[in-house]
């Protein structure tokens, strides 16, 4: 293993901040040498390990190593890993390993490792929808009540609820996420609408976009992001996809309801109008964000990262420099004027593997460090991803960087998570199968067909 670590180090010698030790290749072999490294150097090592994608087994001599499987970001989690390693003062060190980029494939890789009881996984960055499945299968080590208290106090209720399974906390909320309606102020002016108005609905949004010949960017590919949209619409109409999820394959399926039909009507109306992106049925987050920067850009439903990404693109000259100033934001639109919208919920929770060597002590300490308010704030500033603690949103540094922070906070507080069920992958896949492509959605048939199909899939009577 030591040799492999060194190889990874050699493979990427120009990582910023990585100073070559005079003893060169021998350093990895001896504990004390490893401990004397600076934080920057550790960050460099963490980065090179990301590049190597290692599942190492304690290379640094005496220091226990925790392997943290992370979703790809711009280095924010590696920075936190390095600073927690430093804070631990030699008690443990955290190494990060990179998972695939989309949520479905992250789950696929983790599930294979966990089912094989891989002891090389200690911590995991989990998509909240994966928590019930992993918890139910016994893959995650639940937090005891006393461990859970500091991880959940002052954290968004929606984040805590989606980390909890059958009354126990199985993952620590790290960052929360929600979608806002992003819009070009110039287009809204031209259309004569106010997206921030309390009773702003999807119908008004679609009509305005059609009137101004602009597009509404949404995620309509056959993937998890499309279910995020469907779930938010159904929840905003006062319904839900399933209930009694603990019943597993006998859960109550409620997608065939007035709320389900209202959601289908909105998707149908948008997908068949000129307001739809031409690639709606293949759009994921980034292509949909690109639509608002295009010549027909008008509106966009997307996660909190958009603000940072747009500013970055404008600075880099990839998009028109005036776009960020023209960018407005509003709460997720309503389905019916008299009913508050229920924006999507997302984010990342940190789970502790049930098979790691340090699951009862060091891993728990590390989770506490990773999800500390200071690290959440730093992650939000570094990555543009939204903290899971409401108090952070009134922090002056955050308000300066994210003028929409209060809206994000209220939006997360009102968000409705996707169904919590151990069979989430089946439920989500079945919905995608029947609701895709968006232009084929029909309010009078799609909700009913998808309800029947979810049932058949849950019972293992249909292919997906």
């Amino acid at each position, binding site marked *: 293993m030591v040799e492999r670590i060194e190889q990874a180090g050699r493979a990427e010698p120009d990582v910023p901040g990585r100073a070559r030790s005079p003893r060169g290749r021998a350093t990895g072999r001896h504990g004390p040498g490893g401990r004397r490294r600076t934080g920057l150097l550790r960050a460099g090592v963490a980065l090179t390990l990301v590049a190597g994608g290692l599942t190492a087994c304690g290379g640094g001599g005496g220091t226990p190593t925790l392997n943290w499987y992370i979703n790809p970001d711009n280095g924010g989690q590696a920075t936190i890993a390095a600073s927690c390693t430093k804070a631990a003062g030699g008690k443990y060190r955290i190494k990060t390993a990179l998972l695939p980029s989309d949520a*479905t494939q992250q789950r*696929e890789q983790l*599930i*294979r490792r966990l*089912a094989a009881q891989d002891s090389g996984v200690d911590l995991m960055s989990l998509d909240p929808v994966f928590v019930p*499945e*992993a918890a*139910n*299968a016994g*893959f995650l080590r639940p937090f005891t009540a006393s461990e859970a208290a500091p991880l959940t106090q002052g954290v968004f209720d929606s984040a805590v609820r989606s980390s909890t399974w059958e009354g126990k906390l199985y993952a620590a909320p790290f960052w929360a996420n929600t979608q806002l309606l992003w819009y070009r102020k110039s287009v809204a002016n031209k259309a004569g609408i106010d997206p921030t108005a309390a009773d702003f609905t999807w119908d008004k949004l679609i009509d305005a976009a059609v009137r101004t010949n602009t597009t509404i960017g949404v995620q309509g*590919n*056959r*993937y998890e992001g499309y279910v995020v949209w469907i779930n938010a619409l159904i929840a905003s109409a006062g319904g839900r996809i399933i209930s009694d999820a603990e019943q597993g394959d006998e859960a109550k399926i409620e997608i065939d309801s007035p709320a389900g039909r209202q959601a289908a009507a909105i998707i149908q109306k948008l997908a068949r109008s000129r307001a739809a992106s*031409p*690639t*709606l*049925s*293949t759009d994921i987050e980034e*292509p949909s964000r*690109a639509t608002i920067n295009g010549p027909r850009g008008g509106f966009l439903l997307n996660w909190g990262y958009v603000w940072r990404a747009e500013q970055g693109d404008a600075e880099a000259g990839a998009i028109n420099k005036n776009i960020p100033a023209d960018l407005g934001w509003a709460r997720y639109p309503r389905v019916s004027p008299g009913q508050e919208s229920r924006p999507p919920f997302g984010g990342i929770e940190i789970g502790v593997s049930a098979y790691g060597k340090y699951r009862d002590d060091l891993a728990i300490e590390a989770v506490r460090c990773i999800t500390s308010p200071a690290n959440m704030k730093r992650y939000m500033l570094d990555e543009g991803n939204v903290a899971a603690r409401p108090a952070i949103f009134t922090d002056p540094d955050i308000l300066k960087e994210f003028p929409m922070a209060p809206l994000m906070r209220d939006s997360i507080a009102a968000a409705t998570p996707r169904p919590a069920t*151990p069979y989430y*992958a*089946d439920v989500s*896949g079945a919905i995608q199968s029947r609701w*895709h*492509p968006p232009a084929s959605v029909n309010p009078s048939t799609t909700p009913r067909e998808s309800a029947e199909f979810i049932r058949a899939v849950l019972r*293992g*009577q*249909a*292919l*997906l």
Partner: protein
Amino acid sequence: MTSVDTAPVRGEISDRGRAERRLGLLLSTPAVVVMLLVTAYPLGNALYQSLFSYRLTAPDDRRFVGLDNYATALTDGLFWQTVLTTLVITVVTVGVELVIGFALAMVMHRAVFGRRTVRTAILLPYGIVTVISAFAWKYAFDVQSGFVNSWFGLGDYAWFSDRWAALFVIVLSEIWKTTPFVSLLLLAGLAQVPRDLGEAATVDGATAWQRLKRVTIPNMKAAILVALLFRTLDAWRIFDNVFIMTAGQEKTQVLSFLTYQQIITRTELGLGNAVGVLLFLSVVLIAAVFIKGFRVDLSQVRGDR
């Protein structure tokens, strides 16, 4: 090993022949053992698991269901839709590749100058990793980053939002990627056609077309059939292009992808292995049809006889 082939007719094997045969079996034992380990065991395991209702995330709920998984798969419309898609991809790619591959093989065979350059240029696509070529084609046809739409003035035509348009791109990339393989096999066949046969036909006044049809092609029939067999089996198991370009949306799932979705994504090991076994059986069927039906003799392309 050749001793087995060259042994005299059954019944009158000499002592020497018997000893050679024994030696042959002995020498091939290690290979057979390795084959059994790496193919027979996983296959047997898949067969066994396909008889259960078994989910990786709920191992305690495993129960024996007999052939139910096969019944579920074979009565599911999605399975047959997938078979159709796979069939379309196979027939179109193999047909087109055979024609283009033959033409390229002729070019490589006849090239007078720059022979190595010509061969390298033709074989280049085959050296590219399929996933990488799949991404390249995907981005080429992408509405935002691609160049295809602007070259052909197609505006914002979304290639991957329609079943047949998406399949068109998948097939095109498959053809681009694997035609060199076909032409390589055909080149080997062309090299085996005795030159004097063609010359004799020319003397007899045969046109170029007649020579191709009556001399060249009949003499390389074995090479053509082997190329067909290999490519058909490859095309039938297509996965990478579909996985990268459409991930199965717009009814572009193929059999391998369907298996992947059941086993890896849903972690339904029972149902997924049943689909996998069905895929395996279809591959065996194709191979059997070629080898028995068309009498493909795999040893002939090597020029053993």
